[in-house]
């Protein structure tokens, strides 16, 4: 695809989009990843479809791990050539449009897609591969409930039987969404990844028949219908990813936690579907150290501060798995991007923090305080990030925060990436 082949309206829209993005960055109003795309789509509603045409596109969606997996996939695909990607986490069509317009002419694109927009983005970008990571409760005061989300995905994929799906075999909701076989048994081909599921509380009821789902020995199965865990082609074993040929690839990942190794497995599976030799992609994954501040380590006043973002119960469980046994600051807000309802705090088991030095802050620190008291976790309330840093001895400080609380702390640390 070259710019010269695009319709005039698309070229104009693309130029305006890039210009607005540059203006947004130059004036310090934003990183330009949304406004440009929004303007461009106003001029040419087909802009995203036209910008995607001619590229090999992979979409990454799910409740958690989208941004990280998108970054890892883009790194792996880099083996083959330049990759366009929405690396700022702007994961709606305006963000996709900006990302593609800004990247110019690339043979590949990896787009992180908000779960709610998967259907629309499938239609407009005609991807080769779609990766489905997981589905769990997230901002329920405005998001769709989990079973409804799975149904939306399933309906969307039924419209695109030619797409290659890469899906998490350990998540019953994802498994069901990924297999919308029609009466003729047709449906997208699926490559299964054993990407794990630490959070089970949104998938005890079979999405297909409503019966109870049993789990044992890493397997899951419905007690009322044939839905069960598919045999995965890609698995994680220790610090290695095992490919469909049974070859173990040691991944020297610089991101913490078992969940990120699973994200790496998904990224490798997506890249392999697009023709990347796995052994050549693996070293590229080790080049990813942090993503928009997530997992970043910052030195300040003799403290080594590590930032972990956790936006929902499943994410908090993963963050506890990643956090080291060290003083820990928890920060919670309930502003618009976070969801206004803090009820989910009671879906998270905080008892693994007992015995650690725990500090709480953020707009909704009192919600956290009440929650920790019930779990028997001793804590100190601090009014600011600086107070938290001063309150702990030199050494490691783990920070776990939800979305806007994380951005506030990132701002304190000069917008660390």
């Amino acid at each position: 695809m070259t710019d010269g082949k695009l319709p005039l309206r698309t070229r104009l829209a693309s130029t305006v989009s890039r210009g607005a993005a540059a203006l947004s960055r130059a004036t310090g109003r934003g990183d330009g990843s949304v406004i440009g795309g929004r303007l461009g789509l106003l001029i040419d509603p087909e802009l995203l479809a036209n910008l995607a045409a001619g590229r090999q596109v992979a979409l990454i969606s799910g409740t958690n791990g989208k941004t990280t997996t998108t970054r890892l996939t883009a790194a792996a695909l880099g083996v083959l050539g330049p990759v366009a990607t929405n690396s700022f986490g702007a994961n709606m069509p305006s963000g996709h449009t900006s990302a593609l317009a800004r990247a110019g002419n690339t043979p590949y694109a990896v787009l992180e897609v908000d779960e709610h927009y998967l259907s629309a983005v499938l239609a407009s970008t005609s991807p080769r591969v779609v990766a489905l990571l997981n589905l769990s409760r997230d901002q329920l005061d405005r998001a769709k409930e989990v079973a409804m989300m799975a149904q939306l995905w399933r309906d969307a994929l039924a419209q695109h039987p030619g797409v290659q799906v890469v899906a998490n075999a350990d998540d019953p909701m994802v498994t069901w969404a990924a297999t919308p076989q029609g009466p003729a048994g047709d449906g997208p081909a699926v490559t299964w990844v054993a990407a794990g599921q630490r959070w089970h509380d949104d998938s005890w009821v079979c999405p297909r028949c409503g019966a109870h789902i049993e789990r044992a020995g890493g397997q899951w199965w419905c007690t009322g219908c044939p839905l069960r865990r598919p045999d995965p082609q890609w698995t994680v074993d220790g610090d290695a990813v095992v490919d469909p040929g049974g070859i173990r690839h040691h991944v020297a990942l610089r991101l913490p936690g078992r969940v990120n190794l699973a994200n790496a497995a998904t990224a490798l599976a997506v890249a392999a579907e697009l023709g990347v030799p796995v052994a050549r992609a693996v070293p590229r994954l080790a080049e990813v150290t942090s993503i928009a501040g997530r997992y970043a380590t910052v030195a300040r006043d003799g403290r080594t501060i590590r930032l972990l973002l956790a936006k929902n119960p499943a994410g908090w469980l993963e963050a506890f798995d990643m956090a080291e046994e060290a003083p820990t600051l928890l920060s919670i807000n309930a502003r618009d991007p976070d969801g206004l309802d803090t009820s989910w705090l009671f879906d998270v088991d905080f008892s693994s923090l007992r015995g650690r030095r725990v500090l709480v802050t953020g707009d909704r620190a009192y919600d956290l305080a009440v929650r920790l008291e019930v779990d028997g976790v001793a804590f100190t309330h601090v009014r600011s990030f600086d107070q938290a840093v001063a309150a702990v001895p030199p050494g490691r400080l783990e920070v776990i925060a939800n979305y806007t609380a994380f951005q506030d702390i990132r701002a304190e640390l000069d917008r660390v990436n």
Partner: protein
Amino acid sequence: MSTESRPGRRACVSALRIVWLYPDLLSTYGDRGNLLVLAHRAKRRGLPVHAFEVASHEPVPDSADIYLLGGGEDGPQALAAQRLATDGGLHRAVARGAVLFAVCAGYQLVGASFFAKGARCGGLELLDAYSDRGPTRAVGELAGEVDPQLGLPALTGFENHGGRTHLGPDARPLARVSVGVGNDGQTEGAWHGRVLGTYSHGPALSRNPALADLLLRWATGDEPLVPLDDTWPGRLRAERLAAVKAG
């Protein structure tokens, strides 16, 4: 009712039995919180507690002291109502004088009927109320003065539901709404005997420790409970009530 079967008397000799019903169907917004808060407040007073869960494929025991029902989506709500009616354990327990605390979808299904997936579904008829669909979804902070008969401070919570609930003569409103929608924009929740329901969803008791203590008192025999240090719940309540007043 004989003294042996009265839950309050039994608690003196054995652990207080608190059961969260059907967490596999009705657990959407941190509903586990109510089980945790009740167990926590009982334990801090030295009361032995047996807190446990019963899934929808298991029989409901009729011998527990406090029963909890949470919130959920339409499908699971209808399924839970059907299974609880067939099981009968909860009805026997309530008839015996056990305490039932139900929130959101759980509150709707203890009434006579409710709407799920566009159809009217039969409820458990444990409260004189029925629910239908409202013109808008009620999402946001909920607050109001509690029925003076219960002697509690203001209710504070978060609601997220599309239903409207209408009370019959045998149910009293839990509160008069000052912020939010509740049952119908005027009243919120309902209670009768030892059955109490509210649209303040999820961990409603974490913001309303006095309501938690009322349920414990109902279950342990109406004797006053030792006061606890409620500094943090107190600060949370003050912050939330001030926020809705300001907003």
